[in-house]
């Protein structure tokens, strides 16, 4: 059922936006000192298509990527009203994992002051303060992140994004003289992109998104903010990163886990998200 609703939302997002706009029958009165809940729904896509693990996507770098893993950390959520006042969700509770393979797509928020919110801000990854505090403040977020392949242990910290799969480079012929790739298929290579901070560069970024429709949080009204995450932007955004250029010396696989690429990816991810639509009212919906 949930899947059907998701698919519906994906295909008919414009339509549901229209519905959402008309679904305005609730009272506009905001009762003082009341609280409600909200949900952020992260729908993973690839340049306008739905992200399906195992499927192949061609990008403007002339590379074809088959995505096998797309997990990331969403943190430090802030909801913003039209007058600019911000509700900062309690930091200790503000770390979440989105995982395509584990079917984790929602961030559930509770005890938010009732109001009309027009923007949402969130972090992609773990901020430097938490990063340094390590597990003291994270509580068992570390263990949770371990389960979803979002930790680094050779350097201490979190992977903000774990994006893995296989790819066919633009000029496969160029690599014929190399050893056989790990995939066992000539011209097809594994790739691992692990975005994160290290003790040299802080690659945590915060992203602010406008909501196309006001999210009305009331005691009885729980809006669902439907956010699309475009995985294509990681390598094919403002900065173009060719996986082929990151093949290891033996030419068997491409790993991006450090250096300038992480800074470029951090910039690309600023354009990775947009809010597709907002559902207002009570009840479950995507």
């Amino acid at each position, binding site marked *: 059922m949930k899947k059907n609703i998701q698919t519906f939302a994906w295909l008919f997002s414009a339509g549901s936006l229209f519905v959402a706009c008309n679904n305005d029958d609730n009272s506009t009165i905001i009762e003082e000192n009341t609280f409600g809940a909200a949900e952020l729904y992260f729908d993973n896509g690839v340049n306008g298509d739905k992200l399906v693990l195992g499927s192949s996507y061609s990008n403007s770098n002339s590379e074809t990527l088959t995505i096998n893993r797309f997990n990331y950390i969403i943190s430090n959520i802030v909801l913003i009203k039209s007058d600019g006042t911000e509700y900062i969700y309690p930091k200790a509770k503000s770390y979440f994992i989105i995982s395509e393979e584990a079917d984790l797509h929602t961030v559930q928020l509770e005890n938010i002051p009732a109001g009309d919110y027009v923007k949402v801000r969130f972090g992609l990854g773990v901020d430097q303060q938490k990063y340094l*505090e*390590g597990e003291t403040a994270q*509580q*068992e977020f*570390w263990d949770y992140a371990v389960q979803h392949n979002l930790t680094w242990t050779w350097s*201490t*910290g979190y992977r903000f994004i774990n994006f893995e799969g296989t790819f066919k480079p633009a000029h496969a012929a160029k690599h014929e003289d190399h050893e056989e790739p790990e995939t066992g298929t000539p011209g097809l290579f594994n790739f691992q992109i692990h975005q994160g901070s290290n003790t*040299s560069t802080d690659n945590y970024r915060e992203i602010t998104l406008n909501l196309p429709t006001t999210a009305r949080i009331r005691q009885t009204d729980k809006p669902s903010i439907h956010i699309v995450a475009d995985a294509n932007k990681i390598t094919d955004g403002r900065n173009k990163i060719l996986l082929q250029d990151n093949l290891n010396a033996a030419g068997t696989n491409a790993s991006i886990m450090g250096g*300038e690429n992480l800074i470029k990816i951090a910039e690309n991810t600023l354009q990775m998200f947009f809010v597709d639509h907002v559902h207002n009212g009570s009840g479950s919906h995507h």
Partner: protein
Amino acid sequence: MMIFGLFSCTSDDVYESIPADSLFSLKIPSNFPQIAQNIDTNFPTQNGVALGRKLFYDGRLSRDNSVSCAFCHEQQSAFTHHGHDLSHGIDNLTGKRNAPSVQNIIFQSEYFYDGASNSIQMLSIVPIHNPLEMDESLPTIVEKLKQDAQYVQLFRAAFSNGEVSSSNVLNALAQFMTIMISADSKYDKYIRNEAGGNFDQQELKGLDLFKNNCASCHATDLFTDNSFRNNGLPPNSKLNDLGREEVTGFRTDRYKFKVPSLRNIELTAPYMHDGRFGSLQSVLNFYSNGVQHTENLDPLLQNNSHTGIPLTQEEKEALIAFLKTLTDYDFVKNPLFYHKT
């Protein structure tokens, strides 16, 4: 006795009597630089330190329960792995670096030769997970420790939430490392004008040479500036260790390694990140004659016509005499750091 021990594990009293805890009295040496870590959120307590010490000596932190922290960090060698150029780990595998000394941790801002961590809270993650060292994971360690009633009680006694958890394993280890301060060498007594701090002529000459030739990198009374530098060691092609580049991914960090503290250096042979030098004489021979112009060689070791630090044999001997004043016999004998204190 065995049977009694078994019974006590299952009896209720382990859940009732929680020993009172109190803050550890931490003495900060007057000649040291500022503390470089936030220790206020995990300030050492008597019970926290006792738990951290027990964990430090416990092989259960490794996959097959054989390798403890102390395996490579032995107190009598100022918490290094004496006699091993490269550290041995689980399954008798050999690591690719020499075990660094565990001392004065809270005064340092970066850890490991490549800066894999900059947090006292997090640093234990690195050796615990390294497949050549302990090859274990925190959640599995927690599962093992939860089976041990004594640990359950120690965690209850040490932390307000009382939990055996990944966080508290790291917290306890951090508390133990917080108190591992070495600041009572002959040099410290000399600097602080304390009894036992008289330098002879050779040691004074060595100190003077040190200030003029070594102290820009081995700075402050910690004897490190916490930076990463290429000191011109010819790379060992068998190890192909890129140094800090392995953490940052920047080519400009290739062959850079953390400037180590020189405290207790007399006890921490062999030397350098790969333990290639067996004596201080060899180290100084390298600095005077062996520095190679490899990628990213530190500018301080390139002085116009000469790479390295020109030193006569007499000067080397004076430097070694000075370096031996950095030995802190109280630190390596302090019962606070013993296994069974």
